[in-house]
């Protein structure tokens, strides 16, 4: 079921087609599982060339002024392709920097618009003018040009670190999920410029944007995984019939489909709410992420089982999805912690009978 997007002037399905064409062309999902590695830098450049980074930038700054819902199909297609690059940090940063009037913010904004800055976001306690710390695992840390630091001390201003300066080391980090690239970022006495936006404003925005991006990525990949599994089961013969005709497997697949569509419906709704900053947008984004990563996890875990022996091999692709799912589960906070974070507000809304 596809939703309606009354908020944007650019057609969602055209964006999806463009994204799918680019990703089909540029992403070899097997590459990092062979000799290659998941360094998304080239892909990020391609995406910038297509102007995706301008989609949600305000028109007065030269952007396209679309709402978040224009990004949803792109994130979904990136998941579907198991794209090794992340766009979410840059786009989430743009949502924050659009609110900023500082000199540092203006400079970064210009570079973001021209496509020469790529952001990686990190939360931290408190900020000084110079930063001495190590972030052990940041997705897209190798491709990023700037680090946006969000202080959890709510009233404190956000900070920007230019990763091209001296005192910054980015080291690739290997994980089981080779479809993504991670880096350890070590900052030694690195200068940090202040924005006017505070962590109290920035953190919910960035979290919600990243939660939604993760939801769509997971939905795209989960759907692909389920489709490929169903296709395989239609061809694999055992006992003289395709295994996809066995009812026990069919019923499991049907349940996965229901879980997936349910998660997708919430992602559509939560994306619209975020675009309008409407109602409980912050909770909804987290809830959409939870349902989507849960569905992704369940589908890919069963996918290996439904493939049987071949699913257990490195050669066959279904483990690529499983490993991405297991990482997506915990990447921006373990699911229990996300539940704990929003439970008070969800319960309060229930009591208000909303």
């Amino acid at each position, binding site marked *: 079921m596809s939703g309606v997007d009354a908020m944007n002037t650019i057609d969602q399905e055209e964006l999806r087609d463009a994204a799918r064409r680019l990703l089909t062309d540029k992403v070899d999902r097997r590459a990092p599982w062979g000799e290659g590695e998941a360094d998304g830098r080239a892909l990020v450049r391609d995406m910038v060339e297509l102007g995706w980074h301008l989609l949600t930038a305000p028109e007065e700054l030269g952007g396209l002024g679309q709402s978040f819902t224009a990004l949803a199909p792109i994130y979904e297609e990136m998941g579907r392709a198991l794209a090794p690059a992340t766009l979410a940090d840059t786009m989430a940063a743009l949502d924050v920097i659009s609110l900023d009037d500082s000199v540092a913010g203006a400079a970064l904004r210009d570079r973001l618009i021209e496509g020469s800055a790529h952001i990686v976001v990190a939360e931290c306690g408190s900020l000084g003018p110079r930063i001495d710390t190590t972030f052990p695992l940041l997705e897209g840390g190798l491709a990023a040009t700037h680090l946006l630091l969000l202080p959890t001390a709510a009233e404190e201003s956000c900070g920007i670190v230019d990763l091209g300066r001296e005192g910054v080391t980015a080291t690739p980090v290997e994980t089981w999920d080779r479809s993504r690239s991670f880096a350890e970022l070590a900052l030694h006495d690195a200068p940090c410029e202040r924005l006017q936006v505070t962590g109290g404003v920035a953190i919910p925005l960035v979290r919600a944007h990243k939660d939604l991006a993760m939801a769509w990525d997971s939905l795209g990949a989960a759907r692909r995984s389920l489709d490929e599994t169903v296709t395989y089961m239609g061809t694999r013969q055992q006992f003289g019939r395709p295994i996809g005709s066995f009812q026990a497997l069919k019923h499991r697949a049907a349940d996965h489909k229901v879980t997936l569509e349910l998660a997708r419906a919430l992602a559509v709704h939560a994306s619209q709410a975020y675009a309008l900053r409407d109602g409980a947008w912050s909770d909804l984004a987290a809830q959409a992420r939870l349902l989507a990563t849960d569905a992704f996890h369940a589908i890919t875990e069963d996918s290996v089982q439904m493939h049987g022996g071949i699913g257990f091999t490195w050669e066959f692709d279904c483990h690529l999805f499983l490993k991405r799912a297991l990482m997506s589960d915990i990447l921006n906070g373990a699911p229990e912690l996300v539940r704990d974070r929003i439970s008070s507000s*969800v319960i309060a809304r229930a009591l208000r009978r909303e």
Partner: protein
Amino acid sequence: MREDRKVTDLRVELRAWLAENVPKDWRTQQAGDNIEGFLASQREWLSRLVKGGYATPHWAPEWPGGGRSLAEQVAIFEEIARADAPRMSLFFVSLYHAAMTLMECGTPEQRARHLPAILKGEIWCQGFSEPNAGSDLASLRTRAERKGDRYIVSGQKIWSTLGQFADQCLLLVRTDNSGPKQVGITFLLMDMKSKGVQARPIKQITGDEEFAEIFLDEVEIPVENRVGEENEGWKVAQVTLSSERGLTLVELTERLALSLWRLVEAATANGHEIDRLDVEVRRRVVDIASRIEALRAMIATLMANRMAGREAVGDASIIKLAYARLSRDFTALGLRLRGMAAQRDTRYVLGAGYETGNWMFDFMNSYQYNIAGGSNEIQRNIVSERVLMMPREKLA
């Protein structure tokens, strides 16, 4: 956008009307041991809805209250749910299944005889399922033989909602055995007071009696009561079955969403303060709340697609499965949280949906949605074969 404005105006007007008209004491009147109170309360509510013009939004425009768009119908069901008004249990088959069947397939005489009567409270039931034709409805065996201008009908029907109170019945019978099972079925309108008809309520595991068995012993039904042609009743039955267009799910989902507070109430009933609830309970409430929001969004999309003529095969099955599972998990969690208190609470309310606040009753009642109207197992077959296009099993 004009359509949107119309819906908004309707909502405003309806909210005001509901604030005036929803009987405050309906839950007391519809308590499980008070059938007379239930019948009276439902009749009163129907007459108010008819008078207000909110009972028949789906009827043709020439009828009072009729000619509303699907969007307006959805709004009416949502607002009624949000106002926590009674469900239309006793008259739902009349207003939807019977009326839509007659409007689409009935003769002018049939329409003239029954539609005004329905507005005045004629109660209809459905005589489709049989003891050996449940999921496999088309294998029904109730026999009708034509003798002159009458059909002589014998057999047994089951799962007729509130059939024990019905005046009229939408009846499927077999008039031909020679072809495929879908062929040879005929659709009749049967007066429940006919000789040879006996309706007996079925007691459910909840203790409630929401369904009836109907025994038919050489019942005579005039040929003029036939809807559609002889042996072509299966097509008419499809019209009947699709008459509510998802509005029940709209209503049930809204009621579920708006009773989420009951879960929290159940969890805090033992003197716990909300911020002291154990972390596992809090996480589970978050999960249920998320699935409810998702289901609401999914149904909104389904209805929007239906309005736009874009509905895909199997969409309804996906939603039915999602609601069925959620209603079970929702009530199971409430049951768990309410603990021993739920075991001792054996009162219940008729016609209040799946969220009466009596958790054991609601939990038991949630089977209804998981089994009736195509069980979960049947829906999974549909989703796997018609949505995922997995190979069909060769049936013997």
